[in-house]
Each structure stands twice: as C-alpha cells, then as structure tokens.
C-alpha cells in the first residue's frame, strides 16, 4: 500500500531472506515502497514493514562516482549518462510482522521466511486495515533492533491510520497500546507519540 491509498501493485522480488526480515530488489530504480509501508511476499502471504530503503550500485565493487560537475540539472546527468540507471538499483528491507494462515492473520513470525524470488506487493487499504486491527506488530517493531525502529513504527502507524475509517480512533488505540508497551520508558513513548500525533 502507498500512503495515497493507490491499489496494490508488484514492487519487486525477494533477493535475500531470514526469519526476521527479507530484502527485496525493486524492478524500477527509485520505486521502493515508503518507509513503514506494509508489504506482502510469498504465498500464503508473509507481511512485512519496510524498515530500510536503499539505492546502491549493482556491483558493490564499483563505487558510484559523481558525474554532474558540468551539468545544469540533475536530469541532465542521467540524460548524458544513460547507463547509470542500469548500474544502480533500489532495494528495501522489510521486517516480518506476521503472516496469513488459512483465513486468519497471524501476528507472529512464520515458520519460514519467504523464498528468494518471491514477488513483493504493496497491500490494499482493506488488507492494511485488517492486518492492523490487532496491534501486536507494535511489539515486534519496537524490539526489532534497527537504529531507527521508532521512526519505522511512527511511519507505519501514520500510513496504517489512512487505511482505517476512523483514523483518529485508530491512532488513539495504537497510542494506548504503545503506552502499555513502553510503560517504563516515558521519553521513548513521548517521542513516538509526537511522530504519530495527528
């Protein structure tokens, strides 16, 4: 799903996976889903929250060089060096937040991560609303470890709120659930709440 609520679409393919997260490569440069976006991979679906988006050289042994010293605009750089789009790629990492089992959403890790080359899709607003009707993913995200876990969480809640009919009520419920999780860490709670405050 995207923040503007556009329909689900295929955004890439899993290139690396472990029990806690998977990495996908985008088909199109700069076409990664935004931070905090809920994506699904595999079948039955494994849901993940985008926690890192990166654009880097395809060949890690060939660093990217600056090429626009004489160019007037940024577009001009790409126009003058048409090979660039072929040398760069966008990748994103998603933290696994749950999976589908039969007709039910399971808000815990699947027994196996999605296979490599599984297609990765953004989710429809209905799917997001359904998956976030329970807020167990908050705990997974809070304890996920990446340095910007709180940023990911904030972005995820902001995005999911759009998918709910009553966004404010959802945010309040999520806020209360967060408060229960972070009962002993007020400064952290405070900073996350500021990020999601409507």
């Amino acid at each position, binding site marked *: 799903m995207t923040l503007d609520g556009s329909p689900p679409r295929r955004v890439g393919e899993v290139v690396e996976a472990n029990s806690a997260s998977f990495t996908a490569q985008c088909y199109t440069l700069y076409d990664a889903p935004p931070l905090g976006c809920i994506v699904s991979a595999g079948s039955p679906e494994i849901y993940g929250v985008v926690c890192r988006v990166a654009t880097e050289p395809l060949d890690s042994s060939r660093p990217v060089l600056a090429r626009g010293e004489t160019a007037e605009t940024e577009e001009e750089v790409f126009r003058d060096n048409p090979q660039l789009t072929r040398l760069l790629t966008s990748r994103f990492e998603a933290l696994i937040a749950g999976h589908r089992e039969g007709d039910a959403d399971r808000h815990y890790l699947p027994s196996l991560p999605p296979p490599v080359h599984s297609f990765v899709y953004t989710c429809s607003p209905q799917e997001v609303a359904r998956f976030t009707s329970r807020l167990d993913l908050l705990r997974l995200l809070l304890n996920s470890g990446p340095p910007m876990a709180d940023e990911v969480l904030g972005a995820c809640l902001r995005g999911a709120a759009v998918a709910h009919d009553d966004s404010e009520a959802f945010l309040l419920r999520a806020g209360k659930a967060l408060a229960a999780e972070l*009962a002993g860490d007020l400064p952290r709670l405070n900073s996350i709440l500021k990020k999601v405050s409507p």
Partner: protein
Amino acid sequence: MTGGPNQNGDTPSPAADVDLDSQGAALGLVVDGSLSQGVEVRLDPSASVEDVKVGAFVTIRGDNNNFFGVVTDVSLGTTDPRLKHTPPQVDNPFIAQVMSGTVAYGTISVLPNLIMPAVMGDSHEGPSAAKTIPPHFSRAYVASQRDVEAVFGQEDQGHFWIGSPLDMEHKLCVDLDEMVKRSIGVFGKSGTGKTFLTRLLLVGILQQGQASSLIFDMHSEYGWGAADPENHRFAKGLKQLFPARVSTFTLDDDSSRRRGSSTDEVVRIGYGEIEPEDVEMLRETLNLSEVAASAAFNLQQKFGQREWMSKFLALEGRDSVFEMANEIQVQPNALGSLYNRLSRLKRFDFLVESTRQDAANRVVEHLDRGQHVVLEFGKYGRDLTAYMLVSNLLTRRIHNQYVDRKEEAEGGQGREPRPLVIVIEEAHKFLSQSVASHTIFGTIARELRKYNVTLMVIDQRPSGIDSEVMSQVGTRLTCLLDNERDIEAVLEGTPGSRQLRTVLARLEPKQQALIFGHALPMPVVIHTREYGSTDSYEQLSRSAAGWTAPALGETIETHEERLDREISELFPEDG
C-alpha cells in the same frame, strides 16, 4: 457497561443479565490488595478520579462472590517514576489522551466489608462480613441503589432513615433494634451537628416504640426546641413534634416558662437523696482531694443516708467542722474543704431540705407508661456540677429500680422493665478514666443491656472517655473531629480503623457523619437527613404514625358507639 455483553463477549445468561441491569457504572479492575489493607482498584481510562469520592460505595464482582465495600482512598499512579520529573507534552491533546489511563492513571483503595447474598432480595440471607477479597482483575462498579438497599435495609418500623450515603439519593437506614441493645456514642467537635443527629436518633427510638429514652438535656435543646442560628430558625424539640409521647421535666421552671416550653413536672431533689458516690464523681468539678471526697462516706456512716448532707451543711463555723472531723476521724482540713465545696450546692434552687415527691420515681412512672422523658436544666445547664450531680443521682436511682425489677422479672414476679436509653452530654466528664470505674454511667456502659438500660453519650472530646467504656459503645456516630487523639479514641478497636481515619478527617463540617458499629453492617458516611424545615417535621411525624398505643387521655370509640352515632346522624328525628 450496563446491560452490555460481559467481558468475554459471551452471551450472558438470564441471571447474569438481571445482575447487569442493576449495576452501577464501571470503575476499574482490582490489581492489588489484602484483606487487612483493602484492595486497590486501577481506574479505567473512562473513569475519572474526580468522580470517585472517599466514602462512596463500590461493588466488586469476584468469581464466586459479590463484594460490597467503601472507597477509603483515592490516588494517582504512574508506570514510570520519571513522569513527575519530565511530564509529557500534555498541551498536545493526542498525547494527553494516550497518557491518561495508561502511563498515568488513577487508583482507588476499597475496603471490601461485606459479601453480598448470592440471591438479592432473599430476606433470609443478608450480607455477611467479608473474610476474603476478590481476586485479581475483578471488576469494580459504583454500587447501585439496589445494592445499597440490600445492605442497609429499607425504611420500616425497625429501620430508621437517618440520612443518605454520599452522592446518593438512597435512604440509608439504621437498625434501631440493634442500636438500642448497646450503648450509642455521638461524637464530633462543637458545631458539627451532634445535636441534630441526636434529635434524629431520638425521633427514631421514639418511633420504633421498643425503648424509652431519658434525656438529660443540658442546654434545653431536645425537649421544647432551640434556636438554630445557622439557618435562622427555631428547631423544634421532641415535645413539639410528639406532644403525647414526650414528658418534659425541668429543674428551672422560670427558664421553661420564659421559653414557652410546656413542662409536665418540676424536679426538686432533697439533700437526703445525695449520696457520697455523687460527691466522689464531682471531685474534679468541685476540685476536691480524694481524702476530702471520701470523708463523705464517714459522714454518711455517722448520720445515716437521709441526713448526712443536711446535718453536715447545718454545721456552723470552722470550729464545729473541725470538731466533727475529730469525731469521725477525718483530716480536719479535708473535711473543711468538703464543707466549703458542698456549701456551694446550696445555691441550686432545685436542692431542697426535703421533698415529698421522689423525682426518680416520677421519671420511672412516666417511662413505664411508654413516655420519653426530657429533663431540661434551664440555667443549671451552664453549671457542670449541677448537670453531673442531677444526672448521676437520678440515673443511679433509676438504674437501681431497673435492676430490682429485672431481677424480679427473672424470678417470675413481674414484667420486665421497658428498655431505657439514657442520653448524657459532656460524657467525658462522667466517663473519664478516673471516675468511670465507680460512677453509675461507667457501670451501665460496662454491663451492657443486662438490666435493659443503655447509654447514649454525646461528646466532643471522645479521647477523655475511658477506653474500657468506649469499647462497649456499640454504635458510634461521629461528625467531624480534627484532634488526632479524639479520632484515635473513636476508631479504637474498629476493624479497618486506619482507612476510616482518612474518611473521618475528610468529613464536611456540617451535616455529615461517619456511622459504624452494631446498627449497621459496615461503616458508612452519611449526609444527615434534614431536620428543621416544615417538610422534615411532617415526614418525621408521618413515619411515626405506625405507632399504635393511644396517647394518654385519648378516648377510642367502640364499634357499638360508632354505630349509634352514625344512626343518630342519619336519622336525627328518630333519635
């Protein structure tokens, strides 16, 4: 919560449905506690601490029992101690909303006093004292009217409506039968409504009809009535409300006449009725040494009971007193001071050389007829010596008669005397540690209802009352007290006294009282029923209408007489 599905989302059974209908607003969950300290209820985010008041009733639904308790404390809690050092951004309404009820929440302490009967309305099974507490996460609710009714009973002949629980409209009733079985204490510092509360209790006792009362009315407030300066009106006394059932006696008929009070009898007391024990009790007020006071016993031995006082006071001059001291082998100075102090009693006009009427007998006669007797002291009410002397003297003699008659009744030779409640003010003077052991009031307080006599003590310094006597006071009604020692004295020996202390110290200075003891299943703070308006008099007289004994002098038409009268009214020419 009301009427909704239960917590598990299951369909409630019909029985549970009925329960839910009668339930008050949800408050929160039990999260901690003990039987001795009470349980802690964490308030739901929807329940504001400001809406919960100390003294309010709460029901807690345990797994197998419903508990009924009272809020003893309200506090604020937080999950993170850093909250008070760095408060969150509460100017952001979203953050404030999230924080309240989660990280920052309210808690109330509830003392579960009673376990409610499993089937409400089953009169055979009343609430019983709680010997356990509800488990974790039991839900707490504001007690509903129905719960309060189940606990405190409904207004009827045996239950007297004395006020309403805080913030509730419900009539809270005391069990009068239980109340008059043991002594009653009405406490509170001056101006907190002790007199009004006592008037109400007396009306209750009068209505119930099981017991008579004898009121030693120090400030002449209970008989005819007294000004109520707070409300700029005149508060009627018992005699005005129930003229046929109350007899007023007076020591000072001038004062009674001036106040327009109609008195039935004027009390005169002969010197011969004063006993050395009376002097002993007046030791403190007369400032007598122990030796001097006990000299009265020697005098009694010398002259006999009827004469000792008049003969002793008839002595003239210091020398004759000293001579007498030698004769009865008492220290001359001690007897001298006894003589001086007892001479002061001469200024009491109600004390006479001899009287044909025995005041105590007259009082008992009225009591036997089912009358309630108020003894107005008039100007002598300002003199503690007169008050103590007369009340002690009359009470001792009345008590002696009761003892005799009770014993005769036990031996099958007569009827049991009608239960009597004796009302005394400034009780700490009669029941202080130094005199309680040998005055009649101490005896009555200790022997309970063995002889059908109990006390109602009214006092503003309960700490001055002997703790042994205090422990025998069955029902205590206390208005605001602020002295630590007084609070301690009133609550001594009461379960949960630590929690009640908070409640007692927070009472309003007017029209509020904490009641606990035998007449109630659990301690309760009440807003006292109104006394003093025209409506209130009407209500009080109306609810007394159930009393059936005819007033003195009242004639009752027989069936035949009524028939005759009706025939003659219908056919006047035939008659």
